[in-house]
């Protein structure tokens, strides 16, 4: 009896929520059609894909494609290079948002501050195609910077065409485009700090530097930690858009990251769909583990989960 009543209740609940389902329908249909449906194609990572046989018709090869990742020097290089660039970004890009936020907070002059903020955040809203074209021209051997160097008697530098300079240029150009935008999150966190703390410190005679060190930085600590964990979670993505739009044949080694490697495997030379899908899947799985770990650690620190 009770069970039946419950069953009836459920149907009543569902009927009551009919409009909610209606509002939810478009996104669910989309997810099924365009996010879940393509997943059946992942099987080609375990197959020897032949276009003429199709996804279903191609022959199973087990884990052969995955074993190939670890016996292909370029694949291993791509993995290591991805990690190298990601750690470089953590060291040279991650702190810049905090630095800009603190500097902007301390800078006097409301109008100028506002203008700077507009300028600093603007490049973030341009695509890497635009920024890449712009900066490639600016840094070219006959570009403005090199003209300036040579006019002062120096020797022209191939900023984007030298293996050893390419990675530092990635950090530099990425900061150029995004550090102002990254700063906004920290500005918001700084704005949330209790102003009476600063007033009390001023009365106690604390210098500005002491106030930054003892109030501002501790005040944004949680935000910094959360952002850092997020950044670590995305360590397998090394910024495809940027590298793809800045790279050239002279910096093949420095520019080959996992994403670039998968792209090259798929669309240049003789395409190897199965192997490229295997490399992509390998990356996705490591990403998945990193992201879930990041989520767990963040929720432990803030008491709130990022993803539901």
């Amino acid at each position, binding site marked *: 009896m009770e069970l039946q009543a419950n069953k009836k209740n459920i149907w009543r609940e569902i009927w009551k929520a009919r409009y909610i389902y209606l509002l939810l329908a478009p996104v669910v249909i989309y997810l099924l059609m365009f996010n879940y449906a393509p997943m059946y194609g992942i099987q080609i990572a375990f197959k020897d894909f032949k276009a003429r046989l199709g996804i279903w018709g191609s022959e199973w090869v087990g884990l052969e494609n995955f074993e190939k990742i670890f016996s292909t020097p370029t694949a291993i290089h791509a993995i290591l290079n991805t990690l190298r660039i990601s750690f470089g970004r953590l060291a040279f890009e991650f702190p810049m948002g905090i630095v800009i936020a603190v500097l902007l907070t301390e800078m006097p002059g409301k109008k100028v501050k506002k203008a700077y903020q507009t300028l600093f955040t603007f490049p973030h809203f341009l695509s890497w195609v635009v920024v890449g074209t712009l900066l490639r*021209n600016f840094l070219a051997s006959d570009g403005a910077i090199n003209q300036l160097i040579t006019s002062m008697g120096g020797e022209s530098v191939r900023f984007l065409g030298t293996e050893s300079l390419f990675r530092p240029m990635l950090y530099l150009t990425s900061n150029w485009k995004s550090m102002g935008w990254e700063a906004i999150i920290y500005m918001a966190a700084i704005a949330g700090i209790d102003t009476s703390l600063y007033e009390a410190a001023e009365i106690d005679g604390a210098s500005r530097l002491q106030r930054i060190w003892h109030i501002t930085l501790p005040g944004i600590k949680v935000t910094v930690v959360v952002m850092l964990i997020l950044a670590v979670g995305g360590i397998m993505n090394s910024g495809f858009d940027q590298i793809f739009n800045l790279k050239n044949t002279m910096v093949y080694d420095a520019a080959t990251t996992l994403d670039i490697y998968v792209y090259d495997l798929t669309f240049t030379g003789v395409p190897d769909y199965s192997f490229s899908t295997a490399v992509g899947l390998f990356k996705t799985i490591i990403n998945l583990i990193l992201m879930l770990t990041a989520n767990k650690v963040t929720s432990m620190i803030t008491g709130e989960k990022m993803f539901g």
Partner: protein
Amino acid sequence: MAKRRWDSVQIFSAVSLTLIALVIFVPFWNAVVISFETADAYAKHPFSWWPKEFTLGNYKYLLGKGSTLFEAYKGTIIVTVFGTLCEMAISVMAGYAYSRQFPGKRFFFVLLLITMFFGGGLVPTYLHYKNLGLLGTYASVILISLVDVQKIIIMKSSFESIPMELQEAAMIDGATDMTVFAKVMLPLQKPMIATFTLRTMVAFWNTWYWPTLLLNGTNKTVLQLYLKSFVSNLDEEVQASTVFVEGTQFAQGIKMAAVFIVMLPIMAVYPFLQKYFTKGIMVGAVKM
């Protein structure tokens, strides 16, 4: 108010930020100057603050015969307008639905979250669009980035922040979920919707990666794609030393003219709408 003297930290921050501002500004300005410069003047003064010999030659070449710039503008406008409309409609509805309680909510939410971590990947996704016969259509460019999970999650929390009593009061008056959504909740979310509309528009305006693959080999194009292929074609021509430097226009000038024309719309609106852009990231940051 008496003017206080700046202390060393304030001076340091003002000086270093001014330097950074210059570093960010100069490449933009340099590009604009070069685009209005003649080839001869550029050869003599490659780095100047103002065009020495003002010309529209580079722009004329860019817009001259055989130019696909207008096609690209058309493509980008189509993708941006329809893409933004569709994405906003789907996301707002989903965001509201997920903020409510209903049987199966957990299941549907997990269905959404999984796509954030796991997907078909490059080749399976490409083959899927190919099998559906979507290659070479603007629809494919819109569809490939129609749902942004993070956006929906932020909208969900934004709807959740509105007190439940407001909805319940309307429900008692006999309103359905649909009416509550359209008449009560949407008007309250106008600032959030404005912010996300802007950011979605910029995202569609800047899309280039998937269009490269999906529109490849067709006559359809979008602005970013146009810029990329235009620049690489020009580079090839320069390397093959096909003559096209004719007194006024020159490769760098034409390239920078193209850059300028592609970024002009964003440049024109950004200073005025900046606060709406920034508001969005605040919402995201608070919810973290």
